[in-house]
């Protein structure tokens, strides 16, 4: 049996070596051409959010500003399907404020699909706190039709669905730029096609989304923060970290409690373990002070010195 198995192993190894040689031969005969996106793609910028780290908490002011940027800019094309208006209490709003935000028509403009109670025809109504954020387009076809056949992704989970999270969103929003001349020189075929926009933070460098944040003061912040493009991008990125992970603060708080508990449990458990094993080790290793031999030795030493006991 060992011979049969050894033979099978040998066959696999030989086929693998043939694969290896053919792989290397192909590589040296025709090295794969470099792609523009592997040379010019950039990792997300370094950016700090207050929710980072094990003790991270959301900056509610920043989340409110981010919501404002989403409402006034992003929501024109991007949905936020998994988030309900009632969830906004996580941003520090009270019930009346949420109701006003969703349904007054003053802040949130898109209405919720509904049915006309009199005719049964499809219609729309004002949003309620219990509704999820309604989407800007009725369906994927409508979304593509309005965007040169590109589909604006839902943003609810975007910071968990992209490598880099909030930093990626921030980098993408602030990363639009003219295509570098060097890129065109090295890769003449990689010219950004019409209707696409060059952005080195996007995986294939060319993005269908036009730069959404272009001018300072595009939104007017209620708290007086200066709405620079950088600030708006950072705020909306922080907001999207929240939409993807609204329970982050409770998770961090619970995590610290659990870690402290388990640390104590480990220490107490370790001491109990040492205590239980002490006698057992003594039974093998003649080292313990309570070993009869050692006790006798102690008694003898004490008697010699004239100490009682």
């Amino acid at each position: 049996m060992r011979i049969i198995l050894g033979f099978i192993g040998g066959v696999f190894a030989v086929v693998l070596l043939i694969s290896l040689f053919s792989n290397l031969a192909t590589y040296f005969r025709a090295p794969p051409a470099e792609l523009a996106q592997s040379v010019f793609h950039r990792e997300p910028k370094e950016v700090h959010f207050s929710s980072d780290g094990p003790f991270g908490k959301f900056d509610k002011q920043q989340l409110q500003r981010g919501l404002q940027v989403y409402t006034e800019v992003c929501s024109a094309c991007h949905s936020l399907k998994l988030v309900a208006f009632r969830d906004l209490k996580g941003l520090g709003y009270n019930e009346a404020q949420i109701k006003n935000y969703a349904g007054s028509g003053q802040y949130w403009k898109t209405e919720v699909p509904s049915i006309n109670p009199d005719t049964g025809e499809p219609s729309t109504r004002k949003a309620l706190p219990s509704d999820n954020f309604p989407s800007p387009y009725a369906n994927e076809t409508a979304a593509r039709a309005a965007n040169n056949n590109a589909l604006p992704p839902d943003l609810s989970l975007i910071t968990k669905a992209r490598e880099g999270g909030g930093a990626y969103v921030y980098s993408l929003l602030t990363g639009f730029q003219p295509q570098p001349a060097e890129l065109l020189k090295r890769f003449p075929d990689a010219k950004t096609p019409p209707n696409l926009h060059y952005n080195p933070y996007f995986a294939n460098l060319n993005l269908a989304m036009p730069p959404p944040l272009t001018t300072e003061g595009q939104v007017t912040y209620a708290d007086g923060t200066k709405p620079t493009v950088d600030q708006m991008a950072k705020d909306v990125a922080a907001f999207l970290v929240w939409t993807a992970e609204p329970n982050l603060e409770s998770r961090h708080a619970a995590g610290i409690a659990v870690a402290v508990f388990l640390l104590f449990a480990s220490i107490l458990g370790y001491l109990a373990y040492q205590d239980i094993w002490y006698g057992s080790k003594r039974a093998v290793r003649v080292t313990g002070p309570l070993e009869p031999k050692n006790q006798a030795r102690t008694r003898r030493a004490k008697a010699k010195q004239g100490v009682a006991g």
Partner: protein
Amino acid sequence: MSFSWAKPYEPKNPLMRWLDERLPLPRVVYGAIGGGYPVPRNLNYFWNFGVLAGIFLTIQILTGIVLAMHYYATVDGAFDSVNKLIMRDVNAGWLLRYAHMNGASFFFLVTYIHIFRGLYYGSYKAPRELVWMLGLVIYLLMMATGFMGYVLPWGQMSYWGAQVITGFFSAFPLVGEPIRQWLLGGYAPDQAALTRFFSLHYLLPFVIAGVVILHIWALHIPGSGNPTGVDVKDEKDTVPFHPFYTAKDGWFAAAFLLFYALVTYFAPNYLGHPDNYIPANPLATPAHIVPEWYFWPFYAILRSFTVDFVLPAKLWGVLAMFFSILLLFFLPWIDKSPVRSGSYRPVFKRFFWLLVIDVILLGYVGGAPINARNVALGQIGAAYYFLHFLVILPLVSAFETPDPLPNSISESVLHGEKAEAAPAGRKARRGGSVATAG
């Protein structure tokens, strides 16, 4: 069960006596994990991972049962039920899901340590061959369960992972494609596949629990192995499982769960793939389709066959991948060395560590993007994997001269403190101290 000096169960209170006379369940538990199971006294910390695997199976079953109460097994509802209902609206649903998600990873992590412990200390050798083989059955069931669980959130990686893994079957000529369609209930993963994966994902953990009982039962016939690989000779060599190993397992479990908690609470998505937060889309293939990390070594073996040599490359890959696990069932008969513990096998030990490095290399390659360098590394790694088990191991076990073994377990625990306990030679002393380093 195992040794004559094992303490018999003596119920202390009348209720337990009444129960014991009618249904001796307390007696079974006492003999299995209580004071009635004598265990070698020299176990190191690598012997803690079996109990840990049991703890993670329990965590998975408990969190999974509650998650199933809130999960919708439909292609339209699955993604939202996980990412909206469970993650946002169910009380502590985020905790259940993250605990389950990372629990799977940690279950595999402790199982891998447990398996490599067995490989190093020769736990697969007589008289424990069945313990080893039942363990491999558990591992195969875990892989099936883990794969199907990953499909349930119906994200991009769920969908394309299901596509790739069920696609293995289509590599077989003639019967392959019909088998694949039969497994999926269609031409591609869809509602039929999702529903049956959910059903099986709920069923298999209980099958695992059943095989775990057989695994422990088979272990208790010869009793636990130990780092010297020397058989237990008398009562001096053992301590009762309770309280000695319950205490050791207890504190170590708390410390290991701390590690699990840190990942679950502070980096819950670190071991996952961002693409699985994008809803499944049969029309958009992700740039890199990768399974969960615990499948990477096997994925690397699969992808290493790139040449149609007699058989199509894909068929080679699939055969090799299946065989890379199946060959482990033959291990007790491949490695004929009478010495169990790698600590006393100088040549085996070196190859063992080479295997560890090789599997880690394969794991890296399996998760990395495909390019000429990674593929070449994978091909070398995969070739070594097969040569190690099927060629090197039989040769080593035939030609190696093992170091002298200690005369007994209690002697090895003394590690040369007393003259009468000094092992037979200089080498054995070194081996003995390695064996009890934990």
